[in-house]
């Protein structure tokens, strides 16, 4: 495939965090786009909406949710989806994403991105629900791979085959979290390149990068640290396979000044630039 594919290219973005609102408006930093955590803006008014409205005038925005619970056995939450649709219409994001996981059942929400068993039945269950969501929103959504710490005895396939099947059968797009692949590859002892190789390149619309916490025998996905070298290498491998993909860095805790994140974002830019140079020689 060509390095510059037909995908909508937003460039290099960051998660929009309250700590940075004023800096963004005052300094208009060189960041190509922002990803919002959808649930933070499902409020009636006040500062969150005020700042979002102002920042969206300056930068493209994408919506990233954590509560769709697309793999839950509970019915889809249509009230939540109506709120998503209303925010979609209000701020006109470039796209909407959520996670390949479940977050709760019986009306409860654990607020965690819990893994699914990788089975044919679950594929059909999730595909059906993604299709309902896409029909309701009137657009394709992006589904993100989560980092995980457990494997179910009931699973009969790899995570990458599971994600690939779901994306192709539901015709959704993929938000590929490179750090999550790395975290899970350590926790479940697989080769992360196998994961990348299996991904349908034309569906990989966005990439997430982040830091994590190394606990020795396993890794916890904490989004509170700098991105490590192994994840940068995996990112580089991903761009070799998929071509240029809109990329953003997630930092949810221990949030540094915006300039520090821009330095990290520039590292992603450099990697992409280098790969572009290599592939166009």
């Amino acid at each position: 495939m060509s390095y510059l594919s037909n995908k909508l290219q937003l460039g290099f973005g960051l998660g929009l965090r309250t700590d940075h609102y004023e800096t963004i408006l005052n300094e208009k930093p060189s960041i190509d786009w922002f990803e919002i955590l959808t649930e933070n803006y499902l409020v009636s008014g006040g500062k969150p909406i005020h700042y979002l409205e102002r920042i969206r005038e300056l930068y493209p925005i994408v919506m990233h949710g954590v509560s769709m619970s697309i793999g839950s056995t509970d019915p889809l939450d249509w009230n939540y989806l109506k709120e998503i649709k209303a925010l979609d219409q209000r701020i006109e994001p470039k796209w909407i994403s959520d996670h390949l996981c479940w977050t709760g059942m019986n009306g409860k929400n654990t607020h965690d991105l819990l893994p699914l068993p990788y089975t044919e039945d679950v594929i059909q269950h999730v595909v059906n629900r993604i299709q309902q969501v896409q029909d309701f929103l009137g657009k394709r959504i992006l589904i993100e791979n989560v980092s995980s710490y457990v494997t179910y005895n009931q699973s009969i396939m790899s995570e990458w085959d599971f994600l690939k099947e779901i994306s192709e059968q539901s015709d959704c797009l993929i938000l590929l979290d490179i750090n999550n692949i790395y975290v899970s590859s350590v926790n479940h002892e697989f080769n992360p390149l196998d994961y990348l190789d299996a991904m349908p390149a034309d569906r990989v619309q966005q990439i997430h990068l982040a830091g994590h916490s190394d606990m020795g025998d396993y890794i916890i996905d904490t989004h509170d640290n700098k991105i490590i070298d192994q994840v940068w290498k995996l990112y580089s491998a991903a761009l070799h396979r998929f071509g240029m993909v809109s990329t953003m860095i997630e930092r949810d805790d221990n949030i540094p000044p915006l300039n520090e994140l821009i330095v990290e974002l520039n590292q992603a830019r450099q990697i992409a630039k280098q790969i572009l140079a290599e592939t166009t020689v």
Partner: protein
Amino acid sequence: MNELLTIQNSFQDFLIQDDKEIYQSIVDTGKVSAETRLEIYRNAYRYRLIDALAANYPILKIYIGDDQFEDLGIAYLDKYPSNFRSIRWFGDQLVNFLNDNLPYKSFPYLSELAKLEWAMTLTFDAADSEIIDIETVKSIPPEDWAKMRLQPHPSTYLLSLSWNVVQIWQELSEDQDPHEPIQNDHPVNWLLWRKDLINQFCSLDNEEACAIEAMLKGLTFNEICEQLLQWFDPQDAAIHAASFLKGWIMSGLISGISLGTGSSLES
């Protein structure tokens, strides 16, 4: 989907009530045990929600300290697991929890501090609305004043607090040592609202609090005046009500005025 239902049910029961049935569904590798793997989720569940509780009650956390707040968070989470899509709403029952459960109910100022902080969160992200200026009121003919219904800004909340928790909140917010908790001789009325994106609060005497409460109930200006008759004669009641209204408008508390026939005046 029976298999998925069973897995999700047992996984959630593990997270919420430490039920061990999920263990039989988890692969136990030589490197990391199933127990360790599952504990990562249980710890993440607890601490994410305790962090969310702290985000809604930051001063209560400072007041009772990190360890006590963690104990409170775990106890609250056991009783009120989240059923919200957005974690922002986690903690909506904390005031009731503090009122109803030992050891917290022995320290009634804790629930009042929580009540204040929860109201502040509601004020913070309440719906936006225009506010009217004094000219809007001047444009209403005197004969229509009696039937005016005032529309308070959606961020407006009225609290009645028996303890000096506002003082404690202010001191802790400014990194000062807090005063000892003191119970007031009579409950004090506090008004919370948002102006220019910033939360505001002030204490009110009983007369003005009564008028605000009447406004929040949607009563007409005439009915607000009637409420004030317990303190004033009819003419003074109207003068006081008009004075209150002017102050509310100046403070950015009034979003509109309707005249009872479907017509409304907004800025």
